[in-house]
């Protein structure tokens, strides 16, 4: 590093030249660059604000859709529950009806076995009593089940 001749703490005409050089830079930066940079920053801010606004809208829409989906799922659960309950009721009815029919058949058979056979032509033989018919002939269980 070369020290300048004389007192290097005293400014000379170099200061004027260097001041002019700096002023040129100042003018260029302030007139041509900073407005452009400011514009870019403002556009980016606008862009970010718009994106944030869009994100907020999308978030509220997503929340709305979630609520709607939860509502639909709840409704579907309730419908499924009702269908299952109806199926259980029908199941219980079919089982009860089957048991009743089986019991009637059982009773019919046991009654038929206990009753002594009469010869045809005997007095009082007016044919088979209606109560002694097979249960299938008495009623149509499937009709009473109302299946389908």
């Amino acid at each position, binding site marked *: 590093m070369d020290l300048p001749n004389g007192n290097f703490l005293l400014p000379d005409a170099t*200061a004027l030249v260097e001041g002019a050089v700096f002023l040129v830079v100042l003018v260029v930066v302030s007139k041509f660059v900073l407005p452009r940079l400011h514009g870019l920053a403002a556009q980016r801010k606008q862009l970010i604000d718009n994106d944030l606004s869009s994100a907020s809208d999308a978030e509220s829409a997503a929340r709305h859709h979630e609520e709607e989906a939860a509502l639909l799922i709840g409704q579907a659960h309730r419908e499924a529950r009702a269908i299952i309950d109806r199926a259980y009721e029908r199941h219980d009815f079919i089982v009860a009806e089957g048991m009743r029919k089986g019991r009637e058949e059982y009773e019919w058979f046991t009654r038929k076995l206990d009753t002594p056979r009469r010869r045809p032509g005997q007095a009082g033989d007016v044919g088979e009593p209606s109560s002694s018919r097979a249960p299938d002939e008495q009623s149509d269980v499937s009709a009473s089940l109302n299946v389908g």
Partner: protein
Amino acid sequence: MSVQGDSVVASAVTAVIVICLALYLRGNGSVRKPSALQLAWEVTASSARNLADVAAPYRDRVVAAAVTLFWFILAANWLPLLPGSPLPAPTANINMTIALAVIVIVMVHVTALQARGVRGYLRHYLTPLWLAPVRVLEELIKPVTLALRLFGVLFASGLIFALLGELLPPPAALVPHAAWTLFDLFMSVVQAFIFALLTVLYFNSAVPAETSSSSAPVGRSNQ
């Protein structure tokens, strides 16, 4: 009066570098994908804009001065650190720092005159009257301290590089030279920042506080 050619050439090269960078940013600035350089300039500008809260009506002027000073001083400080650079740091010359300080102080006083008016400007220095000499002395000292602080640091840095080269043989000087270069890189940023920060503070002190609160800013709105 003589002109120091190497310092003038160095400051001219610095100016060319800063102008080229600035014009590159002007041409290639992007909204979506800003480069690191663009972001650095924008951060400098927005920091100066935020700092110039009192001088809000003159914010554009303050921001322009602070941003230009920061990047110009930084480029000047880093100029001799460029590989193979034969140029000295222009800021290690008192002429450059004095010129910068005088320009800043002139701008500050012009702004103070605009903000306060001639009577308000004079009243600011004369009330109370017994403090007038101190206030005038303060205003005279401001550019001197501004200039000498930057000059002293950069001059001392150059001296240390020269001493390392003179006192140590080249292989032994390599590590201290590299360490001092790293420190100098950091110190250059700090000095540029201090100069720009003090500039903004001087502008703020030049404008009465009620001006910024009572009148709408003439400049652009906040970024």
